[in-house]
């Protein structure tokens, strides 16, 4: 009785039956497919967004600024209150700027988004210090200020020949400048040299004034300011204010210039004191928190090959000898915990979406089998075995699953793009993995959904059904 179709004619008949069921009542099939497609669209959108967003969220968190700080290992303790260091001028150690390109050679160089060296020098305003255009030179009552030297957007030549542009604007994204940041190089200016014509010489360096300093001393964009290091008042330097900086921190009271200018002011050419570094990391778990010195070799390898903040710190310490690389706990820990939570949240939402879609699709395919009682009865009356009937229905459901799943996938991709674009400004790329997952899920859910009514169908007695009971 339960022979599976073997000969060529039965196979042909089988295909014809499947095709017929699609063409005879297209509207019903369209509806079932629509339910399937919609459900799978949910799954696709949720999956693509969660897969893609995990990475994107991590970079989003980098708007909190640097999570690593590098200082000289041999440094004396800074006596810093409110951003002012009260150490004697020559106390403390410095680090060579020439080592910095090495940072981009560490194993995790792609995870290092930005870094910025900082050198501070306490300075004074000498007499006749502000030259505003169209106004007589002004004097600022003598008072100490901090001049911070750093990179705004500095091209770092890499050992492999490329350049990497980085600076404080990237490590501290909350710094806002009204006007523009100073440029790293002195602008080239044209000077008239009497009867000899003209010559091009480096002009004044540019600088950015903290907003409180600017407000208190009424500095404006376009003014020229003269500063001198407190230790060596003769070594004056004038600069053009190109912007007013607002940070909400100690920098609001400082004057910022390019690192090379401050190195000259401080008499520390090629040196810096502190390096801020922003790295993409994996949130630390129990394993990441362990001390690598107590690990077995295999574990150390695993630890080094995971972008934990501590392993990135260790690899940076290797290329920058004589430094202390410390994790800015406040940023790193908070970021890690929240990132873990948010990822979990996303996956849970995805899971819920999957569940709902699966149940709805399963229900719809169950309904589509239930409604075909009569047809099944007829087939059985004509001598079809339960196996054949089940096989036929399963083939139909699978075909539906693939068509519906495919349509749902394309629909879901559009949705995911919409959401990604809206929220992150970047659309997630369509992924083959999601397509496969969606098709498998669609096939599984439809088969599972139709399995129960199908089993009942295979037990139907043809006679009562044909009688309409």
């Amino acid at each position, binding site marked *: 009785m339960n022979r599976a179709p073997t000969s060529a004619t039965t196979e042909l008949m089988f295909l014809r039956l499947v095709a017929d069921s699609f063409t005879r009542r297209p509207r019903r099939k369209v509806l079932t497919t629509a339910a399937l497609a919609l459900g799978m669209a949910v799954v696709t959108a*949720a999956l693509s967004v969660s897969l893609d967003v995990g990475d994107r969220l991590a970079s989003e968190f980098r708007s909190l600024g640097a999570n690593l700080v590098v200082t000289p290992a041999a440094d004396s303790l800074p006596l810093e209150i409110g951003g002012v260091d009260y150490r004697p001028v020559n106390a403390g150690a410095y680090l060579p700027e020439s080592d910095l390109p090495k940072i981009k050679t560490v194993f995790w160089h792609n995870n290092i988004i930005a870094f910025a060296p900082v050198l501070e020098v306490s300075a004074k305003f000498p007499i006749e210090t502000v030259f505003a255009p169209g106004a007589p030179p002004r004097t600022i009552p003598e008072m100490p200020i901090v001049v911070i030297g750093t990179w705004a957007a500095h091209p770092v030549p890499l050992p492999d020949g490329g350049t990497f542009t980085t600076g404080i604007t990237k490590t501290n994204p909350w710094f806002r400048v009204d006007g523009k940041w100073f440029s790293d190089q002195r602008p080239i200016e044209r000077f008239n040299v009497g009867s000899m014509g003209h010559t091009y010489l480096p002009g004044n360096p540019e600088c950015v004034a903290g907003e409180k300093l600017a407000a208190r001393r009424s500095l404006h964009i376009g003014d020229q300011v003269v500063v001198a290091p407190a230790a060596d008042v003769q070594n004056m330097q004038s600069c053009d204010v190109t912007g007013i900086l607002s940070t909400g921190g100690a920098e609001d009271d400082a004057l910022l210039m390019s690192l090379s200018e401050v190195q000259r002011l401080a008499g520390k050419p090629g040196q810096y004191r502190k390096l801020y570094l922003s790295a993409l990391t994996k949130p630390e778990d129990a394993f990441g928190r362990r001390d690598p010195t107590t690990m077995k070799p295999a574990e150390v390898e695993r630890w080094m090959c995971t972008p934990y903040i501590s392993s990135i710190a260790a690899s940076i310490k290797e290329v920058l000898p004589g430094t202390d690389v410390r994790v800015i706990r406040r940023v790193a820990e908070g970021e890690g915990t929240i990132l873990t939570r948010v990822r979990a949240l996303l996956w849970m939402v995805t899971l819920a979406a999957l569940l709902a879609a699966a*149940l709805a699709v399963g229900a719809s395919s169950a309904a589509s089998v239930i409604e075909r009682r009569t047809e099944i009865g007829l087939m059985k009356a004509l001598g079809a075995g339960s196996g054949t009937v089940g096989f036929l229905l399963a083939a139909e459901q699978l075909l539906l699953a693939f068509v519906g799943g495919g349509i749902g996938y394309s629909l879901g991709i559009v949705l995911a793009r919409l959401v990604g674009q809206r929220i992150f400004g970047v659309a997630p790329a369509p992924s083959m993995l999601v397509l496969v997952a969606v098709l498998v899920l669609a096939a599984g859910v439809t088969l599972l959904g139709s399995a129960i009514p199908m089993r009942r169908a295979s037990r139907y007695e043809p006679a009562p059904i044909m009688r309409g009971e």
Partner: protein
Amino acid sequence: MGAQGTQNRQMFWRIVRRLLTANRGRLFVILLALGAGAAVTSALLNLQVDAKRRLTTEFRRFGANVLVTPSDVSRASAVLNTLPASIMDRISLESKSSRATADPFLYFTSVLNLKTAQSPSQIPVVVVGTNLSKLDQISPSWQWKRMMPQLEAERPCILGVRLSSQILKRKWDAILLAPGAQSKNLGGGSNSYECTELSEFSSGGPEDDQFFMPLADAQRYSGMEERISVVQLSVPGTAREVDEYIAALRQRLPDAEVRPIRQFTEGESKIYSRISGLLTATVVIVLLLTGLCVMAAMTNVAMERRNDVGLMKAIGGATRRVLRLFLAEAALLGFAGGMMGAAAGIFLSIWLGKQVFGVAAQPRLIVYPVAVALTMIVAILSAYPLRRLAGVRPASVFRGEA
């Protein structure tokens, strides 16, 4: 007329009952689809409401986000510039969603003397006086290396990791804070302070170089009784709530400067808006598509009703009454499915909340009526295609024409 009406109504509900129970399998399928929709709806709505609130709480792991400093910050006198300690009483900790934390800090520099028999050494340090018991709340990210501060200790000292590494390099019998040549901010206090209890932490910030002691001792030691340098506040809530809090605090403290730590307030608000946008978008899409999905499943079922409609019309049922019948059935189904789904949704949301935040999401009662109502609307809407049944011609149905 009255008896007729009652009879009609009785008949109406009888037919509805028969429609519902005629095919158990189908009833189960519809209820499953509707219930799944309702469960996910209620769970997601609940989670979304809960997640937004919880995220702002999580953000407090970043520590303080608002500072109160003396308003005259001219550099020359900044070190001597302090606030009266009484300012703490004027800081209201009530913010919109939950309580803020405030902690006073007093900064000055002094010299740490490491006493030994042979060669005593000195380390100039920044001394921070604060409420040690609150350090944990205001800076939850610090890693305590040796021991947590023990508050019973008579004279506890907490060392930043870089300071403690300097100390560990040398030999000493006792650690004593005493005024030295480099001391600034000292108003004339002259007592020394000997540590009886040491602990160490790392923060990755300037605190790593600092020396922490109880506020009252620090005030007495430095001679700055009842003075503080800065108040750190950790204010929970969304960006707007924090801004409102700052504005309110500014009004209360005209003599001090209140400012947000922009690094965290801006970063947080950016992240928060992204995440809540993402959540809302996902929830809306899931709800919409789940609704459509249920609708498609329902419509499929509804289409088999052609025969029923044909029969009813054939024995004289008016189209409107027939439609009302089906609408009543759909509403009933939606209600039942919605109730069951919402009940399941309670458990689902509790479980989801546990998975994500480690704490069960508090069920929001408002969510459940909304979920049931939404399910009913979806059920009734999905009966909309039944309108086409109005055009069913009984004769053609009975002839078996599709």
